[in-house]
């Protein structure tokens, strides 16, 4: 189902749970990855990882290795970024996914339960539960979306401040929000 959805948008987000599916024993170097050194470098790993046992990988390494195995695919499905990566690595992987879409024309499906992962990344968000699309939107400030999934703190804050009077613009960037607050209180 998701493969049909992504054709129109290039990069989509799916709010759902996801199991990282790097299920293999053995060493990283034994995985079937084309141009393995280049693929690992692209996802932010160095050659040291080649001789590491897959079972000994950290959550972050597992996700990056999984992504490396998928770089040759036309549609890349990756998930659980929020649970596996620290914030710096999340931003790195998100930029990589954008590049894979814009420069290499890959379709990207990101699956996560944390909507903030989709900021500056996806063009459309789908809520899928029990294999059905329950909701879809392109607007992070769509209130209906947050009847299905947890609302990001920045959006919750702006909606709260604007409860009785429109004081702040819709923003997903905290630095733009600060400027907006400054203008509002000055």
């Amino acid at each position, binding site marked *: 189902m998701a493969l049909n959805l992504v054709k129109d948008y290039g990069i989509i987000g799916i709010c759902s749970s996801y199991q990282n599916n790097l299920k293999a024993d053995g060493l990283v170097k034994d995985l079937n990855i084309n141009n393995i050194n280049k693929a690992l470098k692209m996802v932010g790993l160095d050659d040291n990882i080649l001789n590491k046992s897959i079972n000994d990988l950290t*959550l972050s390494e597992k996700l990056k290795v999984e992504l490396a195995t998928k770089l040759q695919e036309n549609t890349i499905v990756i998930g659980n970024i*929020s649970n596996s990566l620290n914030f710096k690595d999340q931003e790195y992987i998100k930029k990589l996914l954008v590049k894979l879409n814009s420069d290499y024309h890959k379709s990207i499906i990101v699956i996560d339960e944390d909507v903030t992962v989709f900021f500056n990344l996806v063009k459309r968000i789908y809520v899928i539960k029990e294999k059905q699309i329950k909701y879809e939107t392109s607007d992070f400030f769509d209130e209906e979306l947050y009847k299905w999934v947890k609302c990001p703190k920045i959006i919750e804050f702006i909606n709260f*401040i604007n409860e009785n009077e429109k004081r702040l613009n819709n923003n997903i960037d905290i*630095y733009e929000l600060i400027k907006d607050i400054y203008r509002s209180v000055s």
Partner: protein
Amino acid sequence: MEEETSVTIISTNLNRKLLNKYPDYHVIDQSFKLDDLLQYSKIIFFNILNNLEENKVKEIFKFLDNHNIKYINITNNSELSLLTNYLIIYDENNILIEGHTIEVFKNEKLLKRLGIKLPFIIELSLLLQDYNLTNKIFLNKEDCRGALWP
């Protein structure tokens, strides 16, 4: 950390080897029933609470507090750290910084370099200080609104 009853651990590179450092804590890494936790005096949650609604996590922690059960929450979600008193930041194996939660988050530059995102309200408070709009660190949006738009 020994005296603390509620602790959050955030790692820059999360892995299960961290659990070896707390051998006397029972590990919870999949769904559970609250009542099942009563049999333990020390519990460690491994990356399992991240996507729960905050009120649900508060409910779990309150239940544990009421039954004098010590707990550690290992998580990538810095927002949840505001629900415990003590915070420890690890790299893969070693403690980088620890202390009472708000005090740890005042090391903003170090944490950003490590790739740790501050909880939204803490980051907002620190930016508001930079703009001379407050000298406080807010812990909730209600106090923040009250201070900025009295």
